[in-house]
């Protein structure tokens, strides 16, 4: 019975070899939500660029993504800012097409998109629920499909999703965010199972804690200070883990990983 199962698996797992195109073209990364050099997306973009990989920084806010691209160029890397709203199918397609037109083999895509607006359950409107779902979950689906479309011919590539503790459980006051994030997590898991055997590594990174980046610093500076040293996540250290996961050999891939400050209560 066991042998039969192993045989069945072996037959199912027809793996494509890396195609000549993927071997010969220079590699590129496309980071959605890379606006602001000191957030997770911006830190990942800079970490990847440091290794000589061309980075496309995509986001809604032209000024912010240009700031990240400039920071990369100032460090000697190669980066291009691409204005794209992650809920717009056309704009996402445009970003992917640009990478291809420039002659790069897309090898890493990061989905670091989402909004987190807490609120009492009875105050959540259908519009708000849908907006959350579009920004956090639908964007993952749209970017995921394009990623597969562009990576599958290469027979390799990595797609990483930024998750949150809300991906794992719904806390009071986070109904719409949790529903959207849990939806994104399931989507990522299903993609990992479908496309792993095709050589595409799909990863879900669960960030559990406050990120010491621009967003929180601008709205809740006191909160960050009160957490103290190692009380909030440093985007550069998060980015290091993203880089290590991207580097994993295909015999030992991680699908899901959690990251939290050592002092975090969980």
């Amino acid at each position, binding site marked *: 019975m066991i042998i039969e199962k192993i045989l069945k698996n072996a037959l199912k797992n027809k793996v494509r070899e890396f195609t000549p195109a993927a071997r010969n073209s220079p590699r590129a990364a496309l980071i959605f939500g890379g606006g602001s050099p000191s957030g997770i997306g911006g830190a990942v973009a800079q970490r990847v660029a440091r290794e000589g990989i061309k980075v496309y920084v995509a986001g809604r806010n032209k000024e912010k993504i240009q700031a990240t691209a400039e920071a990369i160029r100032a460090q000697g890397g190669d980066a291009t800012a691409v204005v794209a709203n992650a809920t717009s199918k056309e704009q996402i397609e445009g970003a992917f097409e640009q990478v291809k037109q420039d002659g790069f083999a897309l090898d890493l895509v990061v989905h670091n998109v989402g909004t987190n607006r807490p609120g009492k359950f009875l105050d959540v409107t259908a519009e708000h629920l849908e907006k959350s779902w579009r920004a956090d979950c639908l964007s993952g689906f749209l970017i995921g499909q394009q990623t597969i479309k562009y990576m599958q011919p290469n027979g390799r590539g990595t797609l990483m999703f930024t998750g949150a503790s809300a991906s794992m459980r719904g806390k009071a006051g986070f109904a719409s965010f949790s529903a959207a994030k849990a939806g994104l997590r399931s989507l990522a898991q299903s993609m990992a199972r479908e496309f792993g055997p095709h050589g595409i590594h799909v990863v879900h990174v669960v960030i559990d804690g406050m990120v010491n980046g621009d967003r929180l610093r601008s709205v809740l500076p006191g909160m960050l200070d009160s957490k103290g040293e190692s009380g909030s996540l440093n985007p550069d250290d998060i980015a290091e883990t993203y880089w290590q996961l991207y580097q994993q050999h295909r*015999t030992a891939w991680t699908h899901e990983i959690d990251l939290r400050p050592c*002092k975090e209560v969980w």
Partner: protein
Amino acid sequence: MVSESAVIIGVGARLGVGAAIAVKAAREGLHVFIAGRTPAKLDLIVDEIVAAGGQATAVIMDCTIDEDITALFEQVSNSGTVLRLVVYNTGRNLPAPFMEHDVRLIEGHWRRCVLGGMLVGQAAIRLMQQHIDENHGDQLGTILYTGASASMRGKPLFSGFASAKAALRAMVQSMAREFGPQGIHIGHIVIDGVIDGDVIRSVKGLGKLALKLKGEDGALRPDEIAQAFWMLHRQQPNSWTHEIDLRPFKEAF
């Protein structure tokens, strides 16, 4: 400068997870204490590490015996090194139908996974807590446990192993919540798939067939697994991982 050390428990064949982590940690400059049951196997690994310019000490012990664990950590304590990394990599997953399990079998699994894991965790934490110093701030050390897919769900024929691994996972999660704020990084690595090592090769007939059927890169390489253990150990305390899964890209899960 005081040299730092690692304790790797559950080291056997060279082509295995324990040995690969020991070699990796030694290459990164740690004095490694490699603990296992078979002297000949440990000696081979010590020789390799020393030949490469690293430092290693073999310790013969049984992870289910309290005195052995105490002696091991006393030896580390007396070595003058500062303990930074402990890996608990034990467990045997021979399949057996549920109705053929007996008390001896289920207790054996429990001893190797849960009891040994607790004793080692306690000894490691006690020793690490002695080395609170200014230079390391929040980070005292790392304790990593090897898990399996059986840690997450019970498959047929693995009732005893799965119950022990699941119990270990729960204990380790509890430890992480207790000792994270105290600067000790507790991690659980879930290995999901066949490991391309000496253990599977030693399973008569079936083992080699299973590896062959997995195809190219269809089984986990110990060196790549070791890479993930090392990644966790190197993480900064502001972004620690508690649990990570590792599986071959074409593994069905």
